[in-house]
């Protein structure tokens, strides 16, 4: 990946996904949320093997099938057609969430509406009075999976910060997110708060601070 082109500013969705993939250890069991997180599967580093879990009952999920090869009874949690790789297994929902709740999945990559500096995640409801609540498996994932990564644009379409001191939306889980991959930076959730780990090309620390509604620590010198 060449992210150092001086003309570009920030990371694309694909680059955010690739950066997240690079931070997943070899041999990990991984669950990918709907949206940008799904792209992570396209960027597994060559020397690594991940095994994908989808909560509707498949371990060893493969990529989308060729057009015309879709099977309405072989789908992922986002209800899109997928494939099953050699070594896969099917199981029912009770057994699938045994894997999640029991702490057997290593990494989950999710989208976010808000992430607090303590790692709280809000990604299921704006809490608006007319909103129809819909939580799916997100709360089970953040409660059960060992490492929770978030991939998200740094701000909303309207420019409102998603990284905040305290979430205003209803929580999905408390103190669950460990790292955020945004279009502007990779940011760790540390005991001291948000800390920039890496800046996107053409992005300054000051710019990220400006678009973040919480204190931000600079890249740590090692």
């Amino acid at each position, binding site marked *: 990946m060449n992210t150092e082109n001086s003309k570009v500013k920030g990371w694309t969705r694909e680059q955010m996904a690739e950066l997240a993939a690079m931070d997943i250890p070899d041999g990990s069991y991984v669950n990918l949320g709907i949206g940008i997180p799904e792209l992570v599967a396209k960027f597994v580093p060559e020397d690594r093997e991940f095994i994908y879990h989808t909560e*509707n009952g*498949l371990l060893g999920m493969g990529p989308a099938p060729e057009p015309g090869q879709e099977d309405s009874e072989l789908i992922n949690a986002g*209800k899109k057609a997928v494939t099953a790789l050699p070594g896969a297994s*099917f199981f*029912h*929902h009770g057994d699938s*969430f045994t894997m999640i*709740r029991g702490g057997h999945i290593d990494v989950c990559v999710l989208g976010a509406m808000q992430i607090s500096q303590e790692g709280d995640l809000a990604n299921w409801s704006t*809490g608006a009075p007319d909103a129809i609540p819909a939580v799916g498996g997100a709360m089970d994932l953040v409660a059960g999976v060992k490492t929770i990564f978030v991939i998200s644009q740094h701000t909303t379409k309207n420019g409102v910060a998603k990284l905040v001191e305290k979430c205003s939306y209803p929580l999905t889980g408390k103190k669950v997110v460990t790292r955020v991959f945004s279009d502007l930076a990779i940011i760790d959730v540390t005991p001291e708060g948000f800390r920039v780990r890496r800046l996107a090309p053409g992005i300054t620390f000051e710019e990220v601070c400006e678009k973040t509604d919480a204190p931000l620590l600079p890249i740590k010198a090692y």
Partner: protein
Amino acid sequence: MIDKRIKTVAEAIADITDGSVVMIGGFGEAGSPSELIHALIDHGAKDLTVINNNTGNGEVGLAALIGNEQVSKMICSYPRSSHSKVFPTLYRAGKIALEIVPQGTLAERIRAGGAGIPAFYTATTVDTPLADGKEIRNIDGRDYVLEYGLKADFALIKCEKADRLGNLIYNKTARNFNPIMCTAANTTIVQARKIVAVGDLDPEIVVTPNVYVDRVVEVANPVIESQLVEEGVCYI
């Protein structure tokens, strides 16, 4: 001779009464017993409490059952319908109640209901609004919320193959909630793509042992919901 085969979907669901609690298998369209649901629409039982992960697609299957105003309450994790305004419209009009349950807790509550476990603790929803009003207990330093087992009067199930005793196997991710729902209903009603002879299913690969199944009806060529939705089919 034990023979759980029923000739038609209409006969299979005939004793579902107004006010019944009905678990319906499937995750989205995969594993959804569309023909049994359509028979239930023809049958007309009302005031149903339905347990399913979603609220159906388009205006067929579960979405049509809801659209026909036969469902007074949904228990589900993700009620947003794809290609359908059926549930949102009724919900906003106050015509249908909603109990939102995280997907894994929903699965475990059903499994618990079938396994004689009246209640259990889970970390899911702790520190979120979905735990409001629920008992929290700290066990070994972590907070957990108390959740109760779920049972139903009827379960409507789709499977790939069945035998006359009621042993079932499923197809790929169409398995999903079906096997646990089989265990948690007083009367479990199954539509199978094929009914095979007793002994044809290897005892090692049976997913639902026959003790959980009451009725089996063969539906050789079940509809594919997404195709119906694309074609704009409306069952009601």
